[in-house]
């Protein structure tokens, strides 16, 4: 068991190293750092969202959720999440269109730009840090 885990871990680390070396950028900009160049595509976007959503709750909370609510939990877990991915792409396109006109980086930049004050950007950034930590 431990050998399999070690092997899987080594393969995972090897894949990460290969990908890091392959995708390493020589020219680093704010856009490439914050927004992955501003266009990550469908597949990477899907996996990024999945990685964000599938947290400890999915591993620990969801089995209990299934135990309590039966297969209706699947609608909550997968169906609502795939709906959300559609919504994210749809709303993201609108934000992107706005971004082209206003030139900002990230949601904090959008807030700062819209309200004409840096404080709005800091509030958006702080709320995000608090929400995701």
């Amino acid at each position, binding site marked *: 068991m431990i050998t399999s885990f070690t092997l899987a871990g080594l393969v995972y680390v090897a894949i990460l190293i290969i990908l890091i070396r392959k995708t390493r950028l020589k020219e680093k900009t704010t856009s490439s750092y914050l927004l992955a160049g501003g266009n990550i595509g*469908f597949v990477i976007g*899907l996996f990024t969202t999945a990685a964000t959503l599938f947290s400890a709750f999915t591993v620990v909370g969801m089995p209990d959720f299934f135990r309590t609510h039966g297969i209706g939990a699947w*609608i909550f877990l*997968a*169906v609502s999440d795939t709906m959300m*991915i*559609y919504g994210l*792409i749809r709303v993201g*396109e609108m934000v992107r269109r706005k971004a*082209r006109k206003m030139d900002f980086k990230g949601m904090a930049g959008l807030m700062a730009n819209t309200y004409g004050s840096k404080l709005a950007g800091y509030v958006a950034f702080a709320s995000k840090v608090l929400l995701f930590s």
Partner: protein
Amino acid sequence: MENSRFPKIWLIDAITIIVTIATFTPLVLPQNRSYPFIVGIPYTMWVGFLVSILFVALAYVLSILRKKNTNDH
């Protein structure tokens, strides 16, 4: 280009809204009924699988349309 693109996006949106509403109706969540089974999987579960696959497909089509739009500019 915008004119030919928008009806498509609104069509995808319309399908998404219809599927979203249908998901929360007895069509997907029938009360006290678990048949027909497919390979031992109860009705709501396998229809749920199909709905998730459908949403992924819709999101993919949307991303293609969005990419087309990005390339047009």
